[in-house]
């Protein structure tokens, strides 16, 4: 089996579009995605499906999908409504989700593990060596005694 790929030179047109775009416009694009992902995280943290959240906020599910697509320009009233229904402050919608690290000897994994990062520096001195990242970017520390292969076979 071969894994050789032809070297592609980035399309100058795309580079030009990105370089010439207004920095403000690009920041707006980024912030919309950040906000959408933060709201999506909070909805999932509360255990709601999109349709359940749509019922709570009294909107059509397609409206929720649109909000979370990372392209919606929210009004402050809409953000207040979302924060109210999620029982958080509006400012919480603007802050990035803190990375959660679970320090446990045994952990119950309910979601699919997406990747492994070896020997995270924060864990070198402690009891844990491996950091697993699940679908929602939750990082899970696993004790030294678990070999990488063993641990991945458990969770996959």
């Amino acid at each position, binding site marked *: *089996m*071969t*894994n050789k*790929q*032809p070297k*592609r030179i*980035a*399309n100058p*047109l*795309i*580079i030009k*579009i*990105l370089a010439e*775009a207004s920095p403000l*416009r*690009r920041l707006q*694009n*980024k912030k919309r*995605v950040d906000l*959408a*992902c933060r709201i*999506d995280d909070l909805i999932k943290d509360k255990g709601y499906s999109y349709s359940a959240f749509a019922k709570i906020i009294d909107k059509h599910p*397609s409206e929720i*999908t*649109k909000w*979370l*697509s*990372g*392209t*919606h320009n929210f009004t402050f009233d809409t953000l207040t409504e979302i924060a109210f229904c999620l029982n958080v402050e509006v400012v919480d919608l603007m802050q990035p989700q803190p990375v959660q690290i679970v320090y446990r000897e045994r952990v119950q994994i309910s979601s699919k593990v*997406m*990747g*492994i*990062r070896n020997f995270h520096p924060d864990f070198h001195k402690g009891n844990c060596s491996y950091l697993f990242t699940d*679908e929602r*970017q939750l990082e899970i520390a696993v004790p030294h005694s678990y070999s990488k292969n063993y641990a*991945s076979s458990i969770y996959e």
Partner: protein
Amino acid sequence: MNYQIITLDEFTGDKATIYSILPEGESLTLYDKFVEEYCTDYYDDILSIADLLIDMGCKYGIRENLIKTKEGKPGDGVVAIFDNPDKNLRLYGIRYGASILLLGSGGVKGQEVMAWQDDAKLKKEAEIVIQISKEVSKRVQDREINISLDHMRLTGNLNFLNNDDK
């Protein structure tokens, strides 16, 4: 169609690897052609999609809320990427987990078009992506293509250069 799967380095980051399709004998990938075709009339949409791809590659991965899933056949991973659901430009791709996205091409979905099957251009582009998904899936089943342990990369034989000979 004979083609190779190649990495789009400008979008690939710590969270996801973004690939596209390079047809045999051509210098532009399907994504590059999509940009060239629509950058004049849909400049803002192309820019938003490019920024979204950078965010997916470097920050969020291929999150389901940022794309439209289930655009192809059941289970084939075909998705659509759009600037805004209310706007018209659609880019089709294939999602493999939260960290791999293979981009094809797309087109304009007019207000009168309910589904891609109703528009000749969208149908053509979506069907190309659906066919590629089928071919990649076959290689994954045959263990000719694997997904790396960190779920970030496609490894193995990414050259589909003998398709037309079959």
